C-alpha cells in the first residue's frame, strides 16, 4: 500500500513544495509522486523552477514549505541517508576538469564507497557507456560536451542508485549523443531506477513515461504525453500556413469554433472544437476577411502545443484574478 510518506514503489514524493527567495517564489506548491522504474520529464522554460525543485529533492536547498520524501526518507530530516540513494547530475557541468576520466570515476567510487571488488568493472562500464574507451586518461576539460555529459551520468550511477535526478542533462549536446543518452536512461528505468529528468527540449519529453509541465513555479499538468495531448487540449489541432500571419491570427480569434491560436515559426497552430467542420468553413471565413492562406490541414499535437496552450490558459486565469 502506498502511503503519503512514500515507499519502495513510490521513491520520489513531493508534497506542496514551496521555495521562496526573498519576495520571489521560485517554486509554488508543487506536489507529485514518481513510481519505481518510472521516467518523469520535468518540462518548462528556463527559470520555471525545475532546478530549484530538483535541488530541494536532493536536499541542496531547504524548502520554504512542504516536504520532500525520497527513498522513503524525509529529506529535511536525514539528507545524508537520502544522498546514499540518489544520483544527481546538476545543470552546470560539475565534474573535475583537472582530473582524468578515470580519476573522476575513482573519486566518486570512493565517495560513494562502491565495493572495491565491483569498482573496476563499474568504471569499465561507465567508460564504455560514455563512449570514452581509449580516452580513460584524458583530462576531462579536454572532452567535448556530449562526452562530458555522459561521463557525468556515468559518475552519477556508479553506485547504482535506485533514484536519479538529472537536471538538463542534455543541454548543449548533439542530437546523436542525446539519443544515446535517452537509451541509457530507459535501460536503467527498465532495471527499476526512478528518474526525474528536466529538459527544455520539448521533443525529449516524448521519451518520458509522464511529463510534468511547470511554469513560473507552478505545476500545471502531470500526465503521459499521449494523455496530455488528448485531454488537456480538449479539441483538434489545425496547421495553417499563410503569408500574413499577424492578420490571420487577429481574424481567427473571432472565427466560429476556434478556441486558441498560436504562432509556430511561419505557421499558425489552431485549436478547434471540430476539425472536419473547421477545415470546411475556415478558408471561406478567412477569404471573407480578405485573407489568403496557402495550406490548412489537421495535425498531430506535439507537447509544445500543449505547453503553449496550457501556459496561455494559466495566464488568462491569472489576469482574471483580482
Amino acid at each position, binding site marked *: 500500500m502506498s502511503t503519503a510518506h512514500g515507499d519502495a514503489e513510490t521513491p520520489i514524493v513531493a508534497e506542496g513544495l514551496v521555495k521562496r527567495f526573498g519576495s520571489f517564489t521560485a517554486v509554488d506548491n508543487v506536489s507529485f509522486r514518481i513510481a519505481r522504474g518510472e521516467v518523469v520529464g520535468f518540462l518548462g522554460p528556463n527559470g520555471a523552477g525545475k532546478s530549484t525543485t530538483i535541488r530541494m529533492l536532493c536536499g*541542496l536547498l*531547504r524548502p520554504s514549505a512542504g516536504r520532500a520524501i525520497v527513498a522513503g526518507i524525509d529529506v529535511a530530516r536525514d539528507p545524508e*541517508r537520502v*544522498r546514499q540513494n*540518489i544520483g544527481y547530475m546538476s545543470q552546470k557541468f*560539475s565534474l573535475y576538469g583537472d*582530473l582524468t576520466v578515470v580519476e573522476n570515476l575513482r573519486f566518486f567510487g570512493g565517495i560513494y564507497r562502491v565495493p572495491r571488488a565491483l569498482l573496476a568493472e563499474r568504471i569499465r562500464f561507465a567508460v564504455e557507456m560514455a563512449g570514452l574507451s581509449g580516452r580513460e586518461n584524458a583530462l576531462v576539460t579536454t572532452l567535448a560536451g556530449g562526452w562530458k555529459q555522459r561521463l557525468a551520468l556515468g559518475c552519477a550511477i556508479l553506485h547504482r542508485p535506485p533514484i536519479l535526478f538529472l537536471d538538463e542533462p542534455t543541454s548543449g549536446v548533439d542530437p546523436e549523443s542525446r539519443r544515446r543518452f535517452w537509451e541509457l536512461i530507459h535501460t536503467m528505468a527498465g532495471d527499476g531506477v526512478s528518474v526525474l529528468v528536466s529538459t527544455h527540449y520539448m521533443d525529449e519529453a516524448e521519451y518520458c513515461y509522464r511529463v510534468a509541465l511547470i511554469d513560473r513555479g507552478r505545476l500545471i499538468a502531470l500526465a503521459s504525453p499521449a494523455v496530455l495531448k488528448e485531454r488537456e487540449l480538449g479539441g483538434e489541432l489545425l496547421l495553417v500556413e499563410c503569408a500574413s500571419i499577424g492578420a490571420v491570427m487577429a481574424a481567427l480569434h473571432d472565427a466560429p469554433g476556434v478556441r486558441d491560436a498560436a504562432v509556430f515559426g511561419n505557421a499558425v497552430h489552431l485549436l478547434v472544437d471540430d476539425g472536419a467542420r473547421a477545415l470546411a468553413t475556415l478558408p471561406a471565413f478567412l477569404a471573407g476577411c480578405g485573407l489568403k492562406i496557402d495550406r490548412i490541414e489537421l495535425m498531430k499535437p506535439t507537447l509544445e502545443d500543449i505547453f503553449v496552450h496550457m501556459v496561455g490558459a494559466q495566464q488568462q486565469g491569472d489576469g482574471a484574478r483580482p
Partner: protein
Amino acid sequence: MRIRRLKAIAVKEVLQVWRDPRSLAFALLMPFMQMILLGYGVSLDLKHLPVCMFDRDASQTSRALLKHFQASQYFAIVGGFDNYRDLTKALDRGDCRLAIVVPHDFSERLSDTGASSIQAIVDATDDNTANIAIGYAQAVIGGFSSEVQLERAGSEGLPTTAAPPATAQSRVWFNETLESRNFIIPGVVALIMALVGAQLTSLTISREWERGTMELLISTPVTPMEMMLGKLIPYFAIGLLDAGFCLAFAVFWFQVPFRGSLLTLFFTTSLFLVVVLGIGYLISTTIRSQLGASQIAILVTMLPTTMLSGFTFPIDQMPAAVRAVTYLVFSRYYVTILKSVFLKGSGLLDLMAPTLGMVLYATVVAALAARAFRKRLD
C-alpha cells in the same frame, strides 16, 4: 566518518595541486623566495651609518676622536665640512644621518679642565635608528674618553691600571653575537608558514564553489568532517615539507644556532600547522571566491604575525591593552617557541604555556572549521 571517503578527497586534492602549476609554485617556491627576501631584508642591526664631520678644532686630539668614529663598524664617515650651512644641507638631503661637530676649544678645554663636550646632530625621522645611533656614538666617545684618561694618568705618573675604578663585564647569553638575524629568522619562518599554510587551504573550498564542483560534491553522502580532514591532510604534508625546508634554511644558510630538540620542533610545528591550515579552511568555507579568500587569508596571517607576534616588536614593551590582544594572535605562541627552541634549546616542559596556548587554539579552530561547512546551497 569513513576513511574511504576521506581518502578519495585527499587523493583528489593531491592530484589537483599537482596539476595546478600556480598552487604548486606557491607551495614550494614561495617559502624559498620569502626566506631569501625576509632573511636578508629584515635586520634591526645598525651598521655603517653615514656620518658627517665638522671639525672646528682641527687639533691632534679632535682628529683622534674622529678616527675612533672611523674605526667603528657602526659608522662610516661620508664627508667633512667647514661650515654649519653645508653640514645642515647634508643632513637635510639625507647624505648622512648623524653629524658630529667638534667645538673650536675642544682640545683646549680638555687639557685645561679635563672635560669637554662635542655636538652630535642626529636625523631622528626614524626614532629607533636615531636612538641606536646616539647609543653607539656615546660608546665610541666613551672609548675615546677612557683612552684620554689613561694617557693622562700615564703622563702624571699614576698607575694606569687604576684609572677605571670599576667596569661592568657584561656577558650576553643565547644570542652571543647580538645578531638581530638570530632572533628574526625564527620569526620569519613562522611568518612564512602562516602565510603559505593559510593561503593553501583558503583556496580549497572556494575553488569548488567557483568551478561549480561543489554542487555535485554536496549531493553526495560525504560528511563535513571527511571533507575537512581529506582536504587538510595533503596540505599538512606540504606544510611540513615547507617547514622542514625553512628551518633547514635558517640553520644551514643563515647559520642561526639550533640548540633544541628536533622532536620538540616537530611537535610544535605540527600544532602550528593545524592552526594555520584550519584558519585557511575556515576562511574558505565562508568566502566563495578564491580571490577574496586568499586576500583575507593574507590579511589575517601576515598583519598580526608581523605586528603582534613578537616577531619584530617585543611584546613586553607593548601597552597592556595591546599585549592582551597578542594572546589572540596564533603566531605569538609559535614565535616564542621557535626562538626558545632555536636559541635557548628549550624543551617541551619549558614551553608548556605557549604549547598549551597553541593546543587550545588548534582545538577551537578545528571545531569551528568542522562546523562551518554546510552542505547546502542556500
